[in-house]
């Protein structure tokens, strides 16, 4: 197989990547949420290095896609916004990891 043919084959899985997940900031958020049961806003901001405004905007998109569940609770009268990956979000994230690994593996070295 020539390098050109390999490149054509490699494009197909890349084109099929979920664009909601593919964005670097959202990918970081999903990666952090995938390793915890739930986390609050400050924790995700600390771990990803995103500003609150930036994180807030990305969380809205992830929530709209059904990938993240956002709940509010009060701990000792202090409001806390808890973020959690939904089963759909976990599936999308795992699927993205499989596809990107596959796509990068197919690229000519």
């Amino acid at each position, binding site marked *: 197989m020539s390098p050109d043919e390999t490149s054509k084959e490699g494009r197909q899985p890349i084109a099929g990547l979920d664009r909601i997940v593919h964005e670097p900031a959202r990918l970081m958020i999903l990666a952090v949420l*995938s*390793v*915890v*049961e739930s986390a*609050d806003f*400050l924790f995700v901001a600390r*771990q990803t290095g995103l500003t609150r405004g930036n994180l807030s905007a990305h969380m809205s998109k992830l929530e709209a896609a059904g990938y993240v569940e956002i709940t509010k609770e009060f701990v000792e009268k202090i409001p806390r916004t808890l973020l959690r990956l939904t089963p759909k979000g976990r599936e999308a994230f795992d699927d993205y990891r499989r596809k990107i690994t596959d796509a990068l593996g197919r690229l000519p070295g």
Partner: protein
Amino acid sequence: MPEFELSEIRRRAFRSLYENGLPEIFFGVILLIVGMSLGKGPWALPFASVVVIFFPLLLKAAQRRFIYPRMGYAGFGVQNSDEKAGIFPAVAIAFIILLVAAFVITAIMGWNQLWDLWSTRGLPIYIGALIAIGPFAEASRFGTRRWYVLGAVYLASGFLVQYLPGEPHYTRIVGSQLGTVGGITLIWGIAFFARFLKKYPVMAEEVDDVAR
């Protein structure tokens, strides 16, 4: 993202909540009180029991007060499928059980000389290994280097405490051992906790919400 390895992301997340000196402070207090109880008398045992029983609650309360406002909150209930359980804790526990079983059986058989050897030499080593399991297991799981050092100090204490002057008696030896490592752990924890508080001030109140 510098590296896309979920186990590393999980470790980093865990370290951000637990690598702050608080667990060492609580563990140090427990060891110190138990050591004092054994070395000086049973008066401190009720205090030790209270600290041990309420350890998770006290740690949680301290985390709510000092850690979450600085680092945020995360629950670690979900196990990462990429993460493989380390074999070290299982091997260490099996080895200790075998060691204790061998000594106990021979002691029961009435070999007084061996009992003396066990109570003054073997027991401190056993206690040192026992308390080192926690720091070593957590260090190997989450890559926290300072807990390796703490585990090594606990292990070494079992060998070093045998050189204490005076008539050896196992309660005094083990009491001194636990008291000493408890004190070291407590000072160690306070130093790291003070550094943590200085390094991570409480973040200014901001809108904790998601744009809709």
